């Protein structure tokens, strides 16, 4: 590899990783928003995945493939457990319940000896790389495109536009809601595990309310018409602070300004187009 490319990749390695990981997080938000629900538990699921994976790697030396599976399974289980009692909630109430989940988990991480308390876990070996991060993102994107072209996708869109009508037409609402939450938790958990295995250090504060709002803003900035929107949103919001680095003190001001302008003038997100359906006639 030529030296300049090597230096470039070294300089921007964690930024490029972050693009992929945040893309996965944006997709995990997309699944829930796509059926018209608002969950703010993505950061909590991410934390659960990150801690599960880091503990397995550090304490038990589990092979990385198994670690990744566990990092999806544990949040999925948590989503099932909280999904059933919160099935009757929707809109802001579901959002509040999931914020609660996030805080409970954060406080549990802070107070547990196993997770190192506020000091977090450090010295996590770097096991994830470009292939696995972007492979996972690509797979998830393909899966979502296929889903949105199918009967499932139509049902999800019907739920988003009018839940009552969708239910009357035979869409099994509880099943869709639980599945969406579980898939979302798995994606967030995977993203958390990948993040833990490239940044070598995790602490409870990485998965607080701020993180939940950041993940939500990926999806809102990008638009939720198609799975590509949230990923584009994640890429832009991840790149902005680094691209604006030369502005020094004014960096955060411009960062905020760009986001405000984007939301004001493109209320349906930067990528408003929808995925065409099989059998659809214009």
């Amino acid at each position, binding site marked *: 590899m030529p030296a300049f490319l090597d230096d*470039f990749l070294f300089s921007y390695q964690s930024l490029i990783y972050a693009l992929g990981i945040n893309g996965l997080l944006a997709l995990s938000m997309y699944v829930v928003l796509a059926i018209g629900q608002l969950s703010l538990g993505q950061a909590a699921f991410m934390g659960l995945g990150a801690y599960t994976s880091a503990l397995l790697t550090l304490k038990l030396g589990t092979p990385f493939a198994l670690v990744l599976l566990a990092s999806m399974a544990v949040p999925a289980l948590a989503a099932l457990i909280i999904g059933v009692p919160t099935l009757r909630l929707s809109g802001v109430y579901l959002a509040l319940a999931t914020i609660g989940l996030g805080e409970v988990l*954060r406080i549990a991480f802070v107070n547990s000896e196993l997770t190192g308390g506020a*000091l977090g876990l*450090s010295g996590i070996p770097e096991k994830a790389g470009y292939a696995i991060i972007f492979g996972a993102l690509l797979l998830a994107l393909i899966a979502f495109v296929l889903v949105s072209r199918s009967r499932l996708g139509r049902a999800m869109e019907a739920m988003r536009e009018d839940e009552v009508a969708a239910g009357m037409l035979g869409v099994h609402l509880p099943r869709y809601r639980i599945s969406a939450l579980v898939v979302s938790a798995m994606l967030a958990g995977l993203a958390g595990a990948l993040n833990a295995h490239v*940044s070598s*250090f995790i602490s409870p*504060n990485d998965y607080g309310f701020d993180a939940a709002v950041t993940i939500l803003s990926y999806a809102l900035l990008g638009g939720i018409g198609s799975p590509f929107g949230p990923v584009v949103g994640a890429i832009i919001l991840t790149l902005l602070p680094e691209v604006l680095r030369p502005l020094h003190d004014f960096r955060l001001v411009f960062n905020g300004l760009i986001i405000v302008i984007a939301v004001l003038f493109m209320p349906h997100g930067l990528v408003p187009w929808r995925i065409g359906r099989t059998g659809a006639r214009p």
Partner: protein
Amino acid sequence: MLKKLTALAALPLAASLWSAAALAQSKEPVTIGAIEILTGPNNKYGIAIKNGFDLALESVNKNGGVLGGRPLAITYEDSAGNKDQAINAARQLIGRSKVPLILGPTLSNEMFAAGPVANERKIPIVGTSTTANGITAIGPYVFRTSLPEADVVPVTLKTAQQKLGIKKVAVMYGNDDAFTKSAYDVMKAALEKLGIETLTTETFGGKDTDFSAQLTKIKGLNPDAIVVSALVEAGSGILLGKKALGFPEKVRVIGGNGLNAPKVMEIAGDAANGTLVGSPWFIGKADPASQKFVEAYKAKYNMDPDQFAAQAYDTLFIVAAAINAAGAAEPEKIKDALGKVKYTGVMGPFSFTENRDPAETSGVVVIEMRDGGFKQFN
């Protein structure tokens, strides 16, 4: 073939240019990197540190720079107190700016993230304000010039015990931050060792603003003092809450490094009176070098320096001495030279231990907050 010939023909030309280039290069600045919190809620630490570096940098360059006349320069990167940004900053400094040494980052949390990056690329990284346990255990390229809490807190508590006869205390700490949690661990161990009874241990979150629940409980237990591990905002809130609840004057707050900032007195005002903290340095230190530093700092920035500025100030001289001793701006040589540096600055004599922590703890002073200023207590 033709290409090769042209290349050969160019050789003598290149050789004649060589000497000129070498001369120009000798005046090229030696640029090191620094990662500090320059924006966001914790930027008071980062800015004090940057001020300290810049002041020392001026002095180094006025006195002939480093490596026989090359000026020293610092490229600053902002971490905004965020570990991911600290990693990005470290990677850019190493990969793009090719610095032979990195100063910072500001917080221990950030060092746990950025330290391994520098260590992996064999670039020495020197923390000037990272006091948590385990920082230098990251690897052989990670140094720190800040005294860890484990060295400072026991001195503070021991002094309080001797001078005030403290027997039973209440402890409060922020349990969601690496810095305040690790200071608490040190406090707990030191209290046990000194045989001071802990009546209760209360926790709070770094962003909390109301501490009346914890303080009311503490007041009922009637302690001799309250031992607090908190950063500036929460710590000031506790002091204000303590005054509002009408604690007796003689119940002092004994703080960790996080409370060791003039900002606390600015926020808490009168309520800060009597608060004790241990510090590797304080503004009223009688030492002439220290007084000169305070004067120069006030003249340049029109504000009082704190210990973070002082630590940064000394660190830059230590680093400059190491670069000179290394004889070249090469990371490996600088790393070896750092381990051997002996320097006496505003904080007193300094050298690194084998584990790259500060060796001397003689400079620790216990200071008390009184009417908006620090006074020496021991």
